[in-house]
């Protein structure tokens, strides 16, 4: 280390070493998550040999598909330092409206039903995006309020009744149960969304801007990014995905209820923080949330298989969220400390 290098650009040096270390830990973190998934799977397999069968694995994948789709949107929201507690309600509302539509028009093309759901979701997302980006209400307060409004809408739309399996045409139910090339539609849709999302966040300008807004809103604004638009976009994407998930959910379970997916936002947030998305904003990877969703999906599937009572699941989920965010925080502290030690004064 010559004095020359020190004086040249200490900040640059810090940034580059910082990046390599955090990249290393981030990589290690995903490997760790993967290792944990494998260990969990092997452990469960010992207790219940029917766990690692092709049938059960596709079952897990189909059950995880909706969660993983929602995690994509939630990741974008959390990257911008926000949070969206309303997705369960948006999901229920979009699902309910599309279910009511097919109930009254049984001949409707399922794709149209899908589009209705997505459209409603986008509308809901726009409202939240407007409140957050333009009125500048804290995301948690805005979504907490909106959550109840949409939940109320869902009940009002259905008159408090369920739309059950026999009221839905087979074509609608086959959105979720059908398959293409031997792979279930839900899994296919999730895969497509992940590919698009990966391209979007890593290779488009708008995608990178989302990270810029999240890691430092002020400097993003100063460097010419219209933060308001980015926020609006992020919440709209979240809404659209929630709407899509709503149709898939209703089609999969063949039932639309007023309290569909209530509290599901917690699972989605859990998947994100498990996958290393930082609540402080600016950090999050598609591969991370994929692993996070899979881990949650496996847990949900495995716990009943090894006779863990359903009443423990809520506690386990909460504990996992807490441990995951604490680990995130400690890892971040380690990185910061290393950076500080490497800094040349």
């Amino acid at each position, binding site marked *: 280390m010559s004095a020359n290098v020190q004086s040249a650009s200490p900040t640059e040096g810090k940034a580059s070493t910082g990046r390599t270390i955090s990249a290393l830990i981030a990589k290690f973190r995903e490997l760790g998550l993967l290792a944990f998934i494998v260990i969990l799977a092997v452990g469960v397999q010992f207790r219940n040999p029917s766990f690692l069968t092709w049938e059960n694995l596709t079952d897990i994948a189909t059950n995880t598909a909706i969660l993983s789709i929602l995690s994509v949107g939630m990741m974008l929201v959390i990257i911008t330092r926000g*949070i969206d507690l309303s997705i369960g309600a948006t999901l229920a509302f979009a699902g309910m409206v599309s279910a009511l539509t097919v109930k009254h028009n049984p001949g409707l093309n399922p794709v149209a039903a899908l589009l209705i759901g997505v459209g409603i979701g986008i509308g809901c997302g726009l409202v939240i995006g407007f*409140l957050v980006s333009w*009125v*500048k*209400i*804290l995301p*948690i*307060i*805005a979504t*907490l*309020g*909106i*959550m*109840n*409004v949409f*939940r*109320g*809408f869902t*009940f*009002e739309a259905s008159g*408090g009744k369920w739309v059950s399996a026999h009221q839905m045409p087979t074509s609608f139910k086959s959105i979720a149960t059908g398959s293409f090339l031997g792979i279930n539609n839900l899994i296919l849709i999730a895969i497509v969304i992940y590919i698009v999302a990966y391209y979007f966040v890593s290779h488009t300008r708008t995608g990178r801007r989302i990270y810029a807004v999240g890691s430092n809103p002020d400097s993003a604004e100063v460097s010419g990014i219209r933060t308001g638009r980015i926020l609006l976009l992020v919440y709209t994407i979240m809404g659209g995905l929630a709407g899509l998930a709503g149709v898939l959910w209703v089609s999969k379970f063949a039932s639309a209820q*007023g309290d569909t997916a209530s509290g599901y936002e*917690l699972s989605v*947030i859990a998947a994100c*923080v498990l996958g290393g998305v930082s*609540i*402080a904003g600016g950090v999050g990877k598609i591969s991370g949330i994929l692993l996070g969703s899979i881990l949650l999906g496996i847990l949900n599937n495995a716990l009943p298989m090894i006779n863990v*009572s359903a*009443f*423990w*699941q*809520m*506690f*386990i*989920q*909460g*504990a996992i*969220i*807490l441990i995951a*965010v*604490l680990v*995130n*925080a400690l890892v*971040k*502290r380690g990185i910061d400390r290393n950076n500080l030690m490497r800094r040349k004064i």
Partner: protein
Amino acid sequence: MEQRLLTNKKEFKAKGFILQWEWLLVALIVAMFVMNSNLSEYFFQYDNLRDATMGFLDKAFIVLPMVFIIMMGDIDISVGSIIALSSVVMGDLYAHGVPMPLAMIICLAVGTLCGWINGMLIVRYKELSAVIVTLATMTIYRGIAYILLKDQSVGKFPSWFKFLGWDYVGTLPFILIVFAVFAIAFGLLLHKTPFGRRVYAIGNNPTAARFSGVRVDRIKVIVFTLAGLMSAVTALFLTSRMGSTRPNIATGYELEVIAMVVLGGVSTAGGKGRMIGAILAVFLIGFLRYGLGLVNVSAQMLLIILGGLLIVSVAIPQLKSRFAIKRKA
């Protein structure tokens, strides 16, 4: 000397704005009374109004510490779960033969402990916002309640326990008197003690508060612990009123409490608001709900109204300051 002048000036300005907000609330309450009296002839009767307070005052206990929390720019969404957990622990202990007074004390202790855990996590791990910590503990606390009681409920409390939620002292409901005592205590704590001034200071600028010698962490822990304690108080009254307890009680209370605080003019950005506003909001929402219930407005419609009210009451000051800035520029 200079410093004192500065604070005086600022306080005066804030007062001017806040005062308006509270007058607005009073006007809203009057309007709501007129509307409800027109809708139903049973609304404006002393007995009915008095008894209605017994129905909605339970969650008002949490509003008091929540004012402090939101004033500091934090939030606590685990209060509903703390109610459930402390109530379930009390019910479970009583069902297993623990004497009721002891079970009640343990209920308060459980709530306090839950609040303390929230506070400790928030100050020890500053990277995590209060949102995510209380989101996690919300799931954990209710999860423990489910582990304890599964899908069952416990009841059959001793008959004197009903006193809390159903009885009167003189002509006033017991819960109203207890609430008045707590409200005065919390109001004095916020407005007349150094502690309260420090909470304002933290809300305005936590960093500046820390550098001027305010023990931010300690105050935060105390406030979150108080929120836990008051949730347990709510649990006592709610359980007494319902006569039994289940793990899924008080779901969504956090929303209502936060809505009341925000409607009361406490700023989510921190540092603004007064206790009286929040208390007015408690009665506004409580009587509104009671009045609409009289004319059979559905619970779902109430959800929409409540959510909308929360959004509008946060949006108004935001928009106001936004236009004020624009005018200045």
